[in-house]
């Protein structure tokens, strides 16, 4: 007789979500820069902001309370509602 076992996983049903279309240019778009609060991440993002402004993008800066936890839902909503593009930089 074959063995029947019980599924040990969370048995999640994943919601299929497609990515937004990649913009042809960043000029005229609002780009969110998310600082995850890791050391020297701001140095990288400062430089990135300079480049983005030079090519005509406007930039909004955001910051997670701590790099060890996911971004709070309110912060994610704020970024989604204010920006067309987001760049999240992971330190290390």
């Amino acid at each position: 007789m074959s063995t029947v076992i019980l599924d040990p996983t969370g048995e999640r049903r994943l919601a299929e979500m497609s990515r937004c279309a990649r913009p042809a240019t960043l000029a005229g778009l609002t780009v969110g820069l998310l600082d995850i609060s890791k050391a020297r991440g701001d140095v990288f993002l400062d430089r990135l902001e300079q480049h983005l402004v030079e090519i005509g993008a406007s930039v909004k800066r955001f910051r997670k309370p701590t790099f060890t936890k996911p971004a709070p839902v309110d912060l994610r909503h704020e970024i989604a509602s204010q920006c067309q593009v987001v760049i999240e930089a992971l330190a290390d």
Partner: protein
Amino acid sequence: MAAVDPSIASDDTLVPTHDLAHTLPAQTLPAQTLPVRTLPAQTLPDGLVVVVKRECATCVMVVPVLARLAATVGVTIFTQDDPTFPDGLASVHDADLGVSWHHQIETVPTLMRVIDAKEVDRTVGWSRAAWQAITGIEDLGDDLVVMRPGCGSLSVDPDREDELRARFGGGVLRARRVELADAEDEIEALFDRGWSDGLPVVPPTEARVLRMLTGTTRAPSDIVAVVPPDLVEVTVEKVAINAVMAGCKPEYLPWVIAALEAACTSEFNIHGVLATTMPMGPVIICNGPGTRAIGMNSGINVLGQGNRANLTIGRAVQLVIRNVGGGRPGEVDRATHGNPGKLSFCFAEDEATSPWTSLSTSLGIAPTTNAVTVFAGEGPRCIVDQLARDPDRLANTFAACLRTMHNPKLVLAFDAILIVGPEHARVFAEAGWDRDRVLSEIHSRLQFPGSELVRGAGGIAEGVPAHLKDATLPKFRPGGLLLVHAGGGAGLFSAMIGGWANGEVGSKPVTREVGS
């Protein structure tokens, strides 16, 4: 084995007939009628009901009593083993032991009185007075001994109990059934599906999971925690499945549940512990008399191999995080090196020979209460001092070793566990140093001028920001050093376990009482 609706009899010889819910007692059936159960196993016929088996001497002894009952007030006799027993009397063969299982028959003979399908009285074994009281026949069995104990019911036979639990209790399990092909190796099949931590796991069959669930009073559907990183609600049932896979015994399950409850708090932040590039995992310290009851190791080789409870409780927690939470190495788990303790890192404090109050007591738990404390930690490191015979010099060694944790120039950012071995603890105890004294003496030795710690000092780039050069900085934040007494009785050694980013930024140790 597929799920079985417990309301449906599974034996071909059984005829579940709801219309016959108030059928006549069995002995009134025509003689040629095959012994069939005419009711669902959960429903007993009204009147007197007895459960017996031939291999029980007490059951054989009471046959004349049963014959008298059958001839007078009527009785329904369920026989567990031999369908022809008792000889000459009509009986119903409880072939699948469904009646015995559903009515919690632990001993035969069991005599019950049933009114409107509800059991109102019961006695087990032979007690003349009890049988007379239940039947209302004053001189029943007067020629028998006053009392004789019965025998174990087949439904609680250890060789059959798991199968029965799966047959009649499987309906409570909600997890998806996964059928393995005959040609599949069970162990390999679980590796293939990605459900292993790298070591073989025990296949979680219904029978094993139901047996595991006997270790807790909580319902299988109860939610234990929301498990990162996928933030999935984990039920007691799913914990039990993973506990089976880890190799736990049922009595370990409440400890696994408590550890998960603690680990899946925002304070402990298992998401971050999992995701960090540092070599961190949940270190589980168990306290309370229950640690001895379930056979945990707090002595020789306390952090090593060889003790089932220590190893499988920690492993079960990690399997839940992997399988339910979706936390897998190379995905959300980004550890640069990891450490072997991420398979399992769980041990008990030696409270019996400790000169100090226990860790959990120091964290606010009552001394006789079972508790787990989870700590985000790396692997253990040995502290050697075989020469110090006074507490000051031993504290000096502890401080010097603890200073090196992660980097001698990094302070305040990380907690640590100090596991003091019994021979070292004795040095402190003989000098009258209690827990608080030991910790305060170590802390006093771990105060450093900022000038030694700033970045670049001592030719080491790592360190604290330059503006702290004039401050005096402690290695550990207040409460950041956890003291535990454990280890074998021989060896002037202790151990330290470095922690991960502490406090609000990262993780705080979390303690939870162990439930039932």
